[in-house]
């Protein structure tokens, strides 16, 4: 039989401590978790050498890759390394005009006359090719935008394929989408998409538009054109009729040219509220339809009866997913005051386990900030929070020397009057605030000019239903966050825009209902 001293030796790691019921007790001030390198992960980069990126990319108009009218190109940068990846054509108003003409021709001669079941076949074909090339597209998306491969591989690309499959299914069933109504396509849709989910936003825009019989002129963001141009090659491979989808790369003026083109029937824009307002003004009186999906400052509400450990995961998913470059990010955390210390404590531990670095490493949780101006904006806003008296919490971590990086961050001691509680940061920065009663939670959650999304965490089902009906937000998640599905409409209230994308409601944005 073993002696008592042997038994104690077995728990040798715990130094001088009191014993309780035979257990060593760690004094209160030493109770902390150590997330160090006793056992660390080795680098696990996704293979990228096999994907050759051409040094120059042209415009995709009328089913062909064409040089821009101006002959000018601009550099596309990998935000994780600041290395130049390729050159992208700079489209101008003349290129837009050619693209719109190609789209109009395709609309009148081919696409609007084609039966829905035939259009659907193209969407299915595109979806299947995307699935086949998923790994390549995920790698390119990570290199081009700084997103961790874990997210592009497991979230972006599966959703991209799902959107084409889903809308392929609608193409021949549109008469059932709005029973009793006569449904007609709109014509040429001009679409402008942001840099946070380059391919996914393209899928959200293109799939419903072409499923309903419209043709498309789409402009990606200046910093993330690469994957949309790769998608254009997939359109070629799928033998999508020429001119049904046209890609005009470029800068802000290129987008303006699309919006102002007289032969465009519909504008769909995802991006900042500031630009969205300008575009809305441009289309006034033109008869063009417009849908806008703009900024957000979502409240993520944690009640004291929430499943706390899972709520912490929801907070993480809400704000650090895609480096916080998410318009529906849960960037305002509203915690019931009674559990505030516990939540902050757990959150502090949790962000220490997030892995920041090479977006192509399969273990990376937080990749690079998409572009330099955005990094500067994040820094400026966080500084304003600190200047206004908030407490900054960041993990101990080393950021790569080159590239654009910002650590996962949260600010406590924030009130509704802080800038960080009001303005969209669009980065991995969470503003933590408190509330006392459910009524106050709703009031504070709605106290923003935005209204895109919100989250509610409680184990009480009745409370969920009561709260979600009072929240003025287009999407409300209960006991989860940042979940997307093509069947579910997405869109905002107030300064977060209007119109819905996805689901039956999303089809309405691309149809004339008689």
């Amino acid at each position, binding site marked *: *039989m*073993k*002696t*008592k001293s*042997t*038994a104690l030796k*077995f*728990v*040798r*790691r*715990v130094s001088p*401590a*009191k*014993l*309780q*019921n*035979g*257990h*060593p*007790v*760690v*004094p*209160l001030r*030493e*109770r902390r*978790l*150590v*997330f*160090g*390198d*006793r*056992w*660390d*992960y*080795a*680098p*696990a980069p996704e293979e990228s050498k096999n994907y050759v990126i051409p040094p120059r990319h042209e415009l995709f108009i009328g089913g062909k890759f064409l040089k821009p009218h101006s002959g000018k190109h601009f550099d596309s940068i990998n935000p994780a390394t600041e290395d130049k990846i390729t050159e992208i054509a700079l489209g101008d108003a003349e290129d837009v005009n050619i693209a719109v003409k190609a789209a109009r021709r395709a609309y009148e001669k081919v696409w609007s006359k084609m039966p829905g079941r035939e259009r659907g076949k193209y969407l299915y074909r595109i979806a299947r090719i995307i699935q086949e090339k998923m790994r390549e597209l995920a790698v390119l998306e990570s290199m081009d935008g700084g997103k961790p491969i*874990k997210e592009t591989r*497991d979230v972006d690309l599966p959703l991209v394929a799902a959107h084409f499959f889903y809308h392929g299914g609608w193409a021949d069933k549109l008469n059932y989408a709005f029973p009793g109504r006569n449904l007609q396509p709109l014509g040429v849709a001009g679409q402008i998409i942001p840099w946070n989910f380059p391919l996914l936003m393209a899928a959200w825009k293109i799939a419903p538009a072409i499923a309903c019989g419209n043709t498309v002129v789409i402009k990606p963001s200046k910093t993330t054109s690469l994957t949309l141009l790769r998608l254009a090659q997939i359109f070629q491979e799928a033998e999508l009729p020429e001119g049904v989808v046209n890609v005009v790369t470029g800068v802000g003026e290129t987008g303006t040219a699309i919006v102002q083109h007289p032969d465009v029937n519909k504008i769909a824009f995802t991006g900042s509220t500031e630009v969205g307002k300008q575009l809305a003004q441009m289309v006034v009186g033109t008869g063009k339809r417009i849908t806008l999906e703009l900024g957000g400052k979502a409240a993520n509400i944690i009640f004291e*009866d*929430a*499943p*706390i*450990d*899972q*709520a912490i*995961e*929801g907070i993480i998913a809400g704000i650090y997913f895609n480096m916080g470059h998410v318009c529906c990010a849960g960037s305002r955390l509203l915690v019931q005051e009674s559990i505030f210390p516990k939540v902050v*404590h757990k959150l502090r531990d949790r962000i220490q*386990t997030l892995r920041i670095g090479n977006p192509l490493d*399969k*273990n990376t949780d937080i990749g690079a900030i998409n572009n330099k101006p955005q990094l500067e904006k994040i820094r400026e806003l966080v500084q304003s929070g600190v200047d206004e008296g908030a407490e900054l919490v960041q993990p101990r971590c080393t950021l790569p020397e080159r590239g654009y990086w910002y650590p996962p961050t949260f600010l406590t001691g924030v009130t509704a009057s802080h800038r960080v509680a009001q303005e969209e940061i669009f980065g991995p920065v969470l503003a933590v605030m408190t509330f006392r009663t459910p009524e106050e939670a709703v009031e504070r959650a709605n106290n923003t000019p935005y209204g895109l999304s919100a989250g509610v965490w409680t*184990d009480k089902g009745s409370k969920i239903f009561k709260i979600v009906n009072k929240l003025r937000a287009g999407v409300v998640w209960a*006991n*989860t966050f940042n979940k997307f599905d093509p069947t579910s409409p997405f869109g905002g209230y107030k300064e977060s825009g209007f119109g819905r994308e996805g689901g039956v409601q999303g089809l309405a944005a691309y149809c004339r209902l008689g």
Partner: protein
Amino acid sequence: MKAPVHLEAERPAALFRTPHSALRTPAIPTVDQVMVEERATAFTKRSIKTSAKLAGLKIVVSMMDLTTLEGKDTPGKVAYLCRKALQPADPKYGVPHCAAVCIYPNMVKYARKFLGENSHVRVASVATAFPSGQYPLRTKLDEVRRAVADGADEIDMVINRCAFLSGDSAKMFDEIAATKEACGPAHLKVILETGELVTYDNVRLASEIAMQAGANFIKTSTGKVSPAATIPVTLVMLEAIRDYFFDTGIRIGMKPAGGIRNAKQALHYLVMVKETLGDDWLTPDLFRFGASTLVNDVLMQIAKTVDGNYQGPDYFSLP
């Protein structure tokens, strides 16, 4: 030592004893099934390669409770197990010894004999009418005392699921506390048999009760009920351990058992411990694997990582 008196008064144990004080029970956190399973899946997405894989697998071996729990167990079989635990693989691979052998009470004296008095490999015995627990408490305690007297360093008890599921948490608590007392110097692992508790909320509550009643380790399963250990169930228990540590300063160990059959699964568990409780729990003192067939799959992967090629199963001795 005057402190224990004060600590006894604080002991949350009393909360489970009477209905009246139960009103003041601090709320046991609830568990959301969807999100806990999502988090559990995230651990399995970690990519563990090269040096990390080798180091991780060696840690896994050092945490292993090599187990045989069969009616047909004999001293001969236990001898195989003990020798395997002491030296799992060819010394050239630098594989550490296993943490313990886990056996039935009748086999304890043989294991003690084969391992010797001062072995690094510990002797763990299941007890308390394993696996059902459906015997009188007196019988169960007697079994524990005998196993300890025969040389067991650790006792793996089963909770009284009958008491727990019929709502008598106090009875379950008292049985664990009594078993802890009967263990004396031996460490107590409390098996919740999560496959019979079914819901994560039950697992969380049972974990709290077991820890408050004096468990050194909480353990998922007997291995006799399916499902045995799963990643989400283990995560719920690790989260309970984490909260208990911050509340009391006591580090409770965790032992998933049953169903962990290959090296890759074992590394997923290790990832989960690393990212939930941190470095302090990455030790056989606080984390164990209960398994019988896992060891050779882990050794096969270690040999592959070192030598660069796979060997057939006959190149690894059977436990």
